[in-house]
């Protein structure tokens, strides 16, 4: 009798949780995100406090060894270098490739210059399989949903939630993330999807006849208008052809080292 009571109790709670999941997973279900954006302030404050404390302690240790002025100069130079590196790896390479192609077509298209706003990673969410990060700028700094986030190495992700002083970024490693990409060499279009814990991404909807090779660079295609064209995403590291399937199974290793995210840029066009 007691065992039955236990089981009923347990199943009751599990069912309640499951119903909550079903309802909040529905389109127009529970407005969890809206509620969170309104009540997130205490967590935001804690995350900021931790971030500033960490920064302060790091600075204190460095200052014991180095001159403060040199440190500031170094920080600014690093930021400038990261911006230049990003432009060189993503923007300029793509310009060269586009230029060659366009020259052949005797047409010229003027590219927009990307405006990069420096931000820092303030925190990672607790007990989460979902690959999101929090950045140091929010609504007050004119951050908006779907703004693209990059670093010197390439594409990081896009903003999915905006709080007063912070924003939540969904990285390309998350399985909910989908990015329109193109093979820089062969110009084959595909969709890039994250594979979470494996730390890689996969290309979807790439036809079996595509002539891709291991080592090919993958950049954003610009299709859909969410991600600007030409941002480096990663390199193809594994290709599997299945004769029974229409599409190739392709693995892409991101160019960004997600284990060490520090200074990022938000693209503001």
């Amino acid at each position: 009798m007691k065992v039955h009571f236990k089981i009923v109790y347990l199943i009751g709670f599990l069912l309640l949780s499951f119903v909550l999941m079903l309802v909040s997973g529905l389109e127009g279900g529970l407005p969890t995100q809206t509620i969170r954006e309104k009540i997130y302030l205490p967590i935001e404050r804690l995350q900021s406090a931790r971030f500033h404390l960490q920064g302060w302690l790091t600075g204190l240790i460095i200052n014991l060894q180095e001159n403060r002025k040199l440190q500031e100069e170094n920080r600014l130079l690093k930021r400038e270098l990261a911006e230049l590196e990003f432009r060189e790896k993503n923007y300029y390479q793509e310009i060269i490739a586009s230029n060659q192609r366009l020259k052949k077509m005797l047409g010229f298209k003027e590219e927009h210059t990307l405006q990069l706003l420096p931000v820092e990673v303030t925190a990672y969410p607790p007990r989460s399989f979902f690959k999101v990060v929090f950045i140091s700028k929010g609504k007050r700094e004119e951050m908006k949903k779907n703004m693209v986030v990059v670093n010197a190495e390439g594409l990081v992700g896009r903003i999915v939630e905006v709080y007063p002083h912070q924003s939540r970024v969904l990285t390309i490693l998350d399985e909910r993330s989908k990015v329109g990409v193109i093979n820089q060499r062969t110009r084959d279009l595909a969709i890039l999807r994250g594979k979470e814990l494996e730390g890689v991404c996969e290309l979807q909807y790439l036809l079996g006849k595509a002539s891709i090779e291991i080592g090919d660079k993958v950049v954003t295609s610009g299709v859909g208008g969410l991600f600007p064209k030409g941002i480096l995403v990663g390199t193809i590291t594994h290709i599997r052809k299945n004769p029974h399937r229409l599409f190739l199974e392709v693995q892409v290793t991101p160019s960004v080292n997600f284990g060490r995210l520090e200074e990022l840029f938000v693209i503001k066009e």
Partner: protein
Amino acid sequence: MKKLAVFAILTTIAFVLEVTVVGGRGIGWGRPDFLLILVVVWGWERGWKEGLLVGFAVGLLNDIFFSPLLGLSAFSLSLVGYLSGEIRERVYEENVVLLLMATGACSFLDGFTLSLLSFLFHFSSPVLGKLTYLILISALYNCGLAFLIFVVRGFWKGRMY
């Protein structure tokens, strides 16, 4: 009333530790899970019923602030709280090895349940691929923390009597 106050204080501490200590750990690193530890220890100390209740409440709080799906952590932590209390009922309470084993089992159960539910709700790929490095590392961290709490608790009780 006193119990509720203790719960509120411990939950706040666990959340603060999660946001401040764990929040600094980057993607791809194993992390300790203070919320899970709170639920395991509560279930261990107070039995399956309170473990289940505390697991549900703590999980729901985590979902409100961090999860894309309300009820995700509530589901897994309810199970964890129940399991912890259930194990405690069947074994000798003061055995540290059993507490560590229970913590390890609860960590795995939590990781497995989260993976399975994420897969069911189309947030991630199949489950087996997830039972890897990170869950193991997190389980080790959690066991370490549980050991520390056991030692502190033993010291505290020794002082009390």
